[in-house]
Structure formats: structure tokens, C-alpha cells
């Protein structure tokens, strides 16, 4: 009996290592946001793009799209999100060719075409920006369940906008696959995209 005292710790170690390897090879992918199962058809955004022409988000069908809503007066939440999405494209390198980022303003009264173009292109030359009429914005926001409202303030920045700040990952079939909360790290989105590229190619 005394000769076998080591069997328990050794068996335990073998089991633990096996579990780690199994999880690594066959384990479920952990998404950085809420995975949509089954995928939901993405709603369209029909507004004016950063070049000043009428455009639709669905024109990007065939590519992966990361969609965010915000406003250019915002110095905190919106640029944080856009900077991270720009970082995702850098991390993907050559694979970023089929990944687009679109930013829809919830403040079309202040965000005209010139302003939204200057704002999004600061982060990445390939980013698309959308602005338009209140009706166009209402339709786009409803399609994604985005809520936004104008909040009066005594700030020198004028009124501020309250808005939901999710990022939507849309696949080449124009379906929503993952919804990310504000604060998601670029690494998490890049990891998800790479996983989906390999799973679905």
C-alpha cells in the first residue's frame, strides 16, 4: 500500500492537464460579447454617408461589418469605441480587407457630412460614417433597438446625448452575430473575428 502513495497526485495531475488540453482544443469559443444564436437579420441603415451620397449599410453585404452609434461631440465613449475598432483592423492585418466599420450619428443636427467624415477618418481611412434626417435616424435606431435622447446641460459643449453604446458584428450574409457592450477590448473582437473566419471559411 505504501508503495502507491504517489498514484493519487499523479492521476490528479494527468487529469488536470488532460482537461486543459481538451478545453483548449475542443472547448466552446468564449465570445467577447453576446453571441446571437440563431443569427438575426441585420436592420438596414439608409442615410447619407461620409462622402455626402445617399447610402445604405446593406451595400456592405459580403463583408464583415462592425457597427456603432454615437456622436462626434462625445469625447469619451464614442472615440474609445472607434479607437478600439481601428485597433481591431490593425490587429487583423491582411484579414482586415473584408472588415468594415460603420458609425451612425445620433446627433444629425450637429454632425453634418464634413464633420462626420473628419471624425471617422481620424481613426481609420476605411471607416464609414452615416448622418441624415431625423426620420432616417429613427428608422436606423429602431432596427437595432438603439435608444438615444438629447440631454440639456450647462456644459460649454452644449447639449449632450444619452445613447446606448453597443457594437454590432454583422456577417457577410448581413446577419447580426455578436453584440458587444461598451468597454469591449479590441483583442476580444479580433479573437472572435478570427474564430468566425476559420469556422465559416
Amino acid at each position, binding site marked *: 500500500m505504501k508503495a502507491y502513495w504517489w498514484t493519487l497526485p499523479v492521476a490528479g495531475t494527468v487529469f488536470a492537464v488532460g482537461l486543459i488540453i481538451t478545453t483548449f482544443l475542443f472547448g466552446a469559443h468564449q465570445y467577447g460579447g453576446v453571441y446571437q444564436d440563431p443569427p438575426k437579420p441585420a436592420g438596414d441603415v439608409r442615410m447619407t454617408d461620409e462622402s455626402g451620397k445617399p447610402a445604405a449599410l446593406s451595400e456592405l453585404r459580403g463583408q464583415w461589418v462592425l457597427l456603432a452609434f454615437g456622436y*462626434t*461631440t*462625445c*469625447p*469619451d*465613449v464614442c*472615440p*474609445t469605441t472607434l*479607437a*478600439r475598432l*481601428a*485597433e481591431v483592423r490593425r490587429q487583423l492585418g491582411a484579414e482586415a480587407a473584408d472588415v468594415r466599420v460603420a458609425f451612425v450619428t445620433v446627433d444629425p443636427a450637429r454632425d453634418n457630412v464634413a464633420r462626420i467624415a*473628419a*471624425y471617422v477618418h*481620424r*481613426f481609420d481611412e476605411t471607416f464609414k460614417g452615416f448622418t441624415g434626417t431625423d426620420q432616417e435616424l429613427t428608422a436606423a435606431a429602431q432596427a437595432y433597438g438603439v*435608444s*438615444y*435622447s438629447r*440631454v440639456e*446641460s*450647462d*456644459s*460649454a*459643449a452644449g447639449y*449632450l446625448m*444619452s*445613447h*446606448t*453604446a453597443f457594437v454590432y458584428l454583422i456577417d457577410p450574409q448581413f446577419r447580426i452575430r455578436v453584440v458587444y457592450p*461598451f*468597454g469591449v477590448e479590441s483583442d476580444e473582437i479580433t479573437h472572435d473575428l478570427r474564430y468566425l473566419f476559420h469556422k465559416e471559411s
Partner: protein
Amino acid sequence: MRYLYVGLALTLGVFFATACGPQATPAAPGPAATSIVVDQPWARAAMAGGNGAAYMILKNIGKEDMKLLSAASDVAQAVEIHQTTMVGGAMQMAPVKEIPITAGGQTELKPGGYHVMMIGLKRELKVGEKISVVLTFDKGASITVSADVKQQ
């Protein structure tokens, strides 16, 4: 009777010394200034005419609670202290009167939370440069920090 006058004079002297003493130098950075240590100050790259934000960790190494009351910088038309909060699932930003830093504790100014809001940038904030931000705390303390401009 003579002792009463002396006592009264001493009492008044101590009273005025304590009541007027701290007010004699209201704007100068007093000992209180040294109780705040600013860690990792940075500002986000932003376009001229737009708005910017600066972030940092404020550590209070003193024994008294402190408050950040205002911030200033010559790169913007106006500088305010703001806080982003989650209200019913939506992110909402609003000016705040003060940012508390408890004694022995720290308060982080970070994306999606407290930040120094720079409104109407007079020039572009470029990655790699440094900008100067003056922080004014209660008890007449102020600190000038040099924030690295980053794209993140």
C-alpha cells in the same frame, strides 16, 4: 483683571491665527497639494475644433479626503470635469461639480467614467506629443500634469 486681558488677547490671537491663517495664501499650492499624486496621465488624440478628453489616476497619499474641483488647459476653449454613467442601459455624460479622492485611496479617470473634458480644441492633439493640464483641488491645491497624447 490684568490676567483677564492677557487671556483675552491670547484667545483672540489664537482665534485670528487659525481663522485667517489659511486664507492668507488662497491660490498658492499649500502642503495639501503634495497629498495628491497623479499617475499615468494621458489625453486622446483629437481634431482641432472638436472635443477631447484626458484621463489619469489620482492617488491621495494624505490623511484628508480631497476633491478635484476644476481643470484647465490652454489647448481648449473650455475645460470641464465630466462623468459618463450608465442610465437605463444608455451611456450618458454630464458635467460634475467635483471628483472625490478619499484619504489613502485613489480615483481613476478612465474611458466610460470620470474624465477631463476639453471643449473646442484650439489645435489638433497629435499622438506622441504632451499637453499641459492644470488640476485644481479643494484646500487651494493645484497640480500641473503633462499628459501624453495617445490614440486609444
